């Protein structure tokens, strides 16, 4: 959690390899599936390249599932789930519990007072804050700080982390393969008995994370603004980390309510990949997770974005050089047109031979960087995004024009068979490459099982791509890459430094 990821701007570079989302037929024979009566799904791949194992747990709940008064809770809860259980992270839970209850009572009063804004009673607030700090200090004597980290670290665990996205929340670790039972013990305890201690201190950490990832980074601020502008109705528009004012009103009560609603075996997918004996892992998971009760299934978000009826433009002024984002609403994973968009992304943005790189970076030299990806999630209708960094003295407007010309070309001319063949060749390579690490494979298995409904999405993907025709691409380009469906985001330079000494 040191670098608690949440899919923010990483998308700009990482997710541009959309088309890489496919896997060899070989995977079909290698994955072993097991479903438990409580709804838990386990996926395994046995690989004996090294005596190590990666274990990923994905909960099918993310920031898209938050109510308006809970914005930011999925991510903050992800942080809180590192704070221990009734037996870990504490010296004496029985003595600690009443204090935790008291802390929350004071916090609730404080939050109610803070909610009055300017009309809040300042002296009352001050007194409540210091009372809260005093109680937290008192509770601290029962806390064994970061005991999960401690236990995993001394047993040789690496990459212990978690990330929250719009569609899901994932907890991951890699361990020497003889230590897998430690993972089962800690993670099942976390699913059953999590205690959200040190809540209000951790909320400050998340505020710092927000400042670091968005407020103090103009490029990320543009991204956040752009995505928010894209969605007027659907919760995909809200940032996973939450708006500043949202984070300030989150409480442990809200986090616990979210936790108890969704963090249950029926909403979880586990992938264990590496030096394992699958039959043994099935029994291990049964022993530790088998008795956990199911929770509420995560409801489908019913709100749908209304069709956009005209171009939307947003601008962010920042102490940075210009950047440009273009976006178009498109369907999410599983829709037939989504695959066509993947092919479009590859042809436009993958590699030095891609259309945008050749036209904007090499020929016209209008931009130093271009990329194409989809965001901000994949379960619900999302956006095709084109990113470009204009090269001085060229303006964002010139780059925008050049990008639009390339999109018009997609509508006008059928793509060449060589371009399509190259997409398929790249997929063949990616199918092999992605099998090369335990963590990468565990990531893909949990991701597709959760978003596409089955990990087999990967094994059937290349065949679907092979069926995409030049005519499909023209049709999709004409249907979606239109002015009324378009978003434009621009970062405009406004250089003003801090005050001088």
């Amino acid at each position, binding site marked *: 959690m*040191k670098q*608690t990821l949440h899919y923010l701007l990483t998308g700009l570079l990482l997710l541009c390899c959309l088309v890489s989302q496919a896997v060899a037929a070989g995977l079909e024979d290698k994955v072993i599936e097991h479903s438990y009566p409580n709804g838990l799904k386990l996926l395994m791949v046995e*690989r004996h*390249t*090294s*005596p*190590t194992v990666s274990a990923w747990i994905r909960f099918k709940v993310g920031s898209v599932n938050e109510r308006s008064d809970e914005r930011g809770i999925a991510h903050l809860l992800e942080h809180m789930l590192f704070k221990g259980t009734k037996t870990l992270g504490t010296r004496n839970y029985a003595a600690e519990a009443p204090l935790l209850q008291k802390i929350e009572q004071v916090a609730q009063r404080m939050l109610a007072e803070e909610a009055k804004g300017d009309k809040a009673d300042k002296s009352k607030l001050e007194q409540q804050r210091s009372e809260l700090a005093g109680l937290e200090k008192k509770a601290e004597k029962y806390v064994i*700080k*970061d005991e999960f*980290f*401690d*236990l995993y*670290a*001394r*047993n*040789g665990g*690496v990459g212990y982390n978690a990330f929250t996205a719009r569609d899901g929340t994932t907890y991951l670790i890699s361990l*020497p393969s*003889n230590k897998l*039972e430690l993972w089962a*013990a*800690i993670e*099942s305890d976390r699913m059953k008995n999590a205690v959200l201690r040190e809540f*209000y*201190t951790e909320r400050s*950490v998340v*505020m*710092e994370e927000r*400042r*670091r990832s968005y*407020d*103090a*980074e*103009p*490029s990320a601020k543009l991204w956040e603004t752009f995505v928010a502008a894209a969605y007027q109705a659907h919760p995909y528009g809200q940032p996973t980390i939450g708006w500043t004012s949202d984070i300030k009103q989150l409480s442990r009560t809200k986090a616990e309510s979210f936790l108890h609603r969704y963090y249950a075996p029926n909403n979880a997918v586990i992938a264990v990949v590496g030096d394992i004996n699958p039959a043994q892992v099935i*029994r291990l998971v049964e*022993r*530790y997770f088998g008795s956990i009760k199911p929770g509420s299934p995560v409801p489908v978000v019913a709100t749908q974005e209304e069709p956009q009826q005209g171009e939307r433009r947003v601008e962010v002024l920042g*102490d*940075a*050089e210009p950047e440009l984002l273009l976006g178009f609403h498109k369907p999410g994973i599983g829709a037939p047109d989504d695959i066509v968009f993947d092919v479009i992304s590859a042809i436009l943005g993958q*590699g030095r*031979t891609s259309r945008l790189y050749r036209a904007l*970076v*090499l020929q016209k*030299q209008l931009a*130093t960087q271009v990329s194409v990806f989809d965001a901000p999630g994949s379960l619900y209708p999302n956006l095709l995004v084109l990113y470009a960094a204009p*090269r*001085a003295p060229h303006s964002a407007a010139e780059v925008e024009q050049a990008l639009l010309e390339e999109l018009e070309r997609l509508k006008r001319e059928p793509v060449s068979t060589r371009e399509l*063949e*190259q997409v398929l*060749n790249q997929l063949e*390579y*990616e199918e*092999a490459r992605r099998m*090369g690490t335990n963590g990468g494979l565990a990531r893909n298995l949990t991701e597709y099982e959760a978003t596409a409904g089955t990990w087999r999405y990967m094994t059937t993907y290349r065949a679907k791509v092979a069926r995409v025709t030049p005519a499909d691409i023209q049709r999709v380009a004409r249907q979606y890459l239109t002015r009324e469906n378009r978003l434009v985001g621009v970062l405009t330079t406004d250089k003003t*430094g*801090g005050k*001088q*000494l």
Partner: protein
Amino acid sequence: MTFRIRFFLISLLALLCCTSLQAAELANPRSMAFPPLTFAVPKAERAVLQNGTPVYLLQDHELPLVTVTALLHTGSVYDPPGKSGLAALTGSQLRGGGTGALTPAQLDGELEFMASSIESSFGTDLGSVTMTSLAKNLPRSLQLFSDILFKPRFDEHRLNVARQQVLDAIRRQNDDPKELADRELRKAIYAGHPLGLEPTADSIKAITRTDLQAFQTQFIRPDTMILAVSGDFERSAMLAQLNQLIGSIVPAKPLALPVVPQVTPSFSPAVLYAPKQINQTVIRLGHLGITKDDPDLYAVRVLDFILGGSFTSRLMMEIRTNQGLAYNVGSSFDVGRHFIGSFTAETETRAEKTGKTIGLMETIIAGMQQHPVSPDELKLAKESIINSFLFGFTTPASIVLQQARLEFYSYPADYLDRYRDRIAAVTREDLLRAARKHLHPEAFKLVVVGDQQHFDKPLQQFGKVTTLSLP
């Protein structure tokens, strides 16, 4: 040599026990016992081409992929005066600028169509060129790999595009306050040494195609190179092709790598302030560190874990976990190979807590010099480093590259085999001595990027402040 690791699987007995343990007590993570696992460092084969170029080889037929890397003695420390950025541009244009036989567009087209990738990048004292290919395209990919190394075209148009890109990156170099702070700290620590130089618009504009060609001729030669090969290949065919492509090259002139002086160890404090209107202050501090040949290397590794290199480190525990002042905080010794490395610490905190947080960092770092670490801290650090050691060897490519790098930097032959024993031998006294010798809290270069009108304390409290005039 096939890729094989010896280790013991959980015994059959344990397996049978598990099946009947349905109702049994679940194990306590604090005290649970594990089946034994012994791990011997996997070894790649070292072969030598007919002209003397070393090649590390490790076959693994799990996936139909091959990776080949060339490590080269080159980098930005060899940039001529006034031409900072030459090594980096040469690195990028080896691949970007085409080959004798292929224009850049043809090269891009052919590689991407067969889904092969060749990428080159030159750092400070090591350049690397890496090829990955589907096994079925290996012969052609390897031919292109060798052409890129030894017959680069350095196409003028592509060079111009690359030059413009670097100029634009220089324009953007202050956009991200964290990158700005990292760079200014490096410049301050290595002031007066080539490691402290950054490319400027002028130095980039001064670089010509002829410079790239001369740099390539000087540094890309079989006798500055070590090769690392892994994946799905056949040994004798691989060696035959490497001998034909690379082993046959004999440089016209004897090797004469320019001598770059060692960094002068000097320690003096400085406070550098870069104004930015942001609500979170970026804090970086540090000084020169050690080289890999320092006898305190292993103590420093353990010290690193305890001070700022883990989630339970002292810096993390106090500044993040206990006080909620930061999301990111940590410190590390970047151990130098040819040149003296550095010790740096970093965090970001809200403007109103700037002074408090700097003070805490300094106190926590200085604390390492005052008392021995606790036995628990030492135990945790050593167990973590020793038990996670095997993660350095999870892919054939990482194993073979690791061994090539050790030879490249002249590590002792037993470095990996003895690593865990040497970590295990570190004592609390060693750590205290190493902390006293290698940490210099009185001589931090402190870089602060932020908006000082919102700081809780004046920066002058930490020393004489120099305001940076940002390029």
